[in-house]
Structures are given as C-alpha cells and as structure tokens.
C-alpha cells in the first residue's frame, strides 16, 4: 500500500531533526534542503539512507541530487512506495 504524503512528511521531519539537528517544526514541504535547512550533501546521504530504512524504498545515488526540497523527497518516497 502506498504511503500517504502526511505520513512520509512526518517521518522526514523526524529524520532531518535527528541527522542534522533541525527542529521538526521548521521543516515544510517547500523548504530547500541546502539553502533553507542547511543540510549539506553528506548529511543528505544520511537522510536518504534513514528514509530508505524507514519507508522500505530504494533511493538510487543518481536520484539523491534531484531531491532539492523536502517536497521532492516526500513525493519521491510516496511514488516509490506505490
């Protein structure tokens, strides 16, 4: 069964808070990981691996750089889980 956008966003908030120390409250769909949340390229890999484990999806290396915003990541995971 596909995951809901709300469920994935809630999970991503927890992961980003855990990996990068960004308060979950400031993490929204339109936030850019690099420019708004200061999640650098290596922390992004940690976020991606944690998301893979949590949601049971595969996010290939060549996709990681495409995930610019929180919304990009949430939508990718929702689609991948369908």
């Amino acid at each position, binding site marked *: 069964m596909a995951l809901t956008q709300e469920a994935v966003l809630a999970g991503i908030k927890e992961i980003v808070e855990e990996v990068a120390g960004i308060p979950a409250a400031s993490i929204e769909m339109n936030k850019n990981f690099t420019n708004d949340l200061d999640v*650098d*390229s*290596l922390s*992004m*890999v*940690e976020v*991606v*691996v944690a998301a893979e484990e949590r949601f049971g999806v595969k996010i290939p*290396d060549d996709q*990681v*750089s495409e995930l610019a915003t929180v919304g990009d990541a949430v939508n990718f995971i929702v689609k991948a889980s369908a």
Partner: protein
Amino acid sequence: MIHANAPTHSRIVSVGGYQPSRVVPNSEIVDRIDSTDEWIQQRTGIESRRFAAKDEGVIDMAQAACEQALSRANLTIADIDTVIVATITYPFQAPSAATALTARLGNPKAAAFDINAACAGFCYGVGMASDFVKSGTSKKVLVVGVEKLTDFTDPDDRATAFIFADGAGAVIIGASETPQIGPTVWGSDADSREAIVMEPSWNEFRNDAQGIKWPNIAQQGQAVFRWAVYSVSKAAIRALEAAGVKPEQLDAFIPHQANSRIIETMAKEIGLPEKVIIAQDIRTSGNTSAASVPLAMAALLETHPELHGGLALLIGYGAGLVYAGQVVQLPPVASKS
C-alpha cells in the same frame, strides 16, 4: 608430502612515515575552486595537507618511510625478502615502484611488486604480507603505501582539489609467536567502478593530447560516502568477528583517511565505544590514498604512545570499489640499536 616449516603467526614489527615538508593550508587552495576554509573543514575535516616538492617522487617518499620503519625495528634492508608497494600514482606502468624502491634501499634481490587497490592498497598489502609470512614464503615483508596524488589531481576541480595530498607510510611484517594480525576481510563492489576514476585513459590522452586533459582523479562524493559508511562499515564489523575481537576490546580505529565525516559516521555504524581512539590524521594530512592508514598509524603512535602493543582495527576502501580490513596489534615501542 611438502614440508613447509612455516611460522604460525605474523605481526607488525614497526611502522614508519614520511610527509613532504610543505604544509598547504586551505587558504592556498580555495581561490581556484571558489570555496572557503570553513566549507572544506565542515565537509572533510581537512585543515591543511602536505604537497611534495616538484622533484620529490613516489620512490623518494617511500624510501624515507621505509628507512624509518627499518630503523625502528633495528633491521636493515638486507633483512627484508619481500617488498610490496601500494600506489596508484607511480608514473611508470613498468617496471614497478617496488623494484625501484628495493633497488634504491640497497636490496635488489628481494621479491618486489605493486598493488593497485587504490585507497585500500595498504590493507590489501598487510593481508598478503601476513599470509606470506605465515605460509613460509617470506620472512620479513616491507609493505608500503605511497602516493603523489598532486600529480593526478586537477587543482581547479571543486570536488577533489582540496582532498588529495602526498605522503608515504610503511610497516614491516614478520613472524610472531602469538597471533597479532587477524584474518583480512576484503572484497569489491566492482559494479560501482565509476564512483572513483582516474581518467581519461593513457590511450585517449595520447591520441588527442591537444583537446584532452591529463588523467586526474574524479569521484562522486555522495555515492562514495554512502558506500563507505553503510557497506564498508559492515566489512569492518566482519573483520572484528573474523579476529574474535569485540568493539570494546579495541584500543584504536585506523580507517582510511578519506573524510572526517566518513570516519565519524563509520565509527558510529560499527558501534565503537568512546574509549576507542579514532585516527583523524585527515585534519593535517588530507587524503593520501594508499599512504593514509600507515601514516595515520605512525601519527597516532606519536601522539598516543600508550597505544604501542594495543589492538587496532584497520580498514581501507577506495577506487574499484575495493575494500580490505583487519584487526592488528600495533607495533611495540621502537627497539634500541
């Protein structure tokens, strides 16, 4: 029936290191790649690195590291019967760096060959040397990791210019009454060869030298980070298991010095307790590929002399992608001659 008459165990007898004298801080690198000292330190932990002089080659640096290792073991090159050099930056395809080195050191009769396993080369060499000693093929082996990466790094490449550096490290491996080198856990992820490459090929360069750049190292940072932290860490855990050593029994963790963030995250993944001292030679040495593990070992024993004789987990990983790791007992304090 073959009579082997071989010793049962092997050990690291001594370690030596050599770094070029020129210290290159981030401030000297940043202008060409539009970066900052802060950015480089945050991403890699590197504050400064050493660059070899123009006329200082791979063999010069290797010689200095080997002479220190020999002197610390109270041995001479005549005592060495096998020389293994791990490098990807010796500028001759043949004959090998190892034959040039053993001739330079004064023993042109030793068995000598090079390993191309990039940043894992030193740990590949330690594994082979240990097995050569245990099988009776060799009595004392020099294993050298040496690189002059500045010859193959594009100073304008924003992804690599601040990472790579030069240096050499060497160990002597000989027989032991007790097991002091655990089994080597090694392997490759050869479907990911494109993650770290030195390109173009010599043929492409020769055929179109006008339009094609000199071969340089390029890497996909995120892919390498993910592989190192989440795959190589599992190999490190297997190396501990193969040696029958628990994380809490370790005194030191000496991984390839690729990036301090990789080192820290790897330590977390392996589950190393806080008391284990983690080599962070990357800060002042940069990434010296095959030289990084023995250089970090030598540096750690200088700053933490209490680690002599302690248990350390070594793990190398790099272009291939390839990896190798083993648990070793660090060499004793240098014997007085």
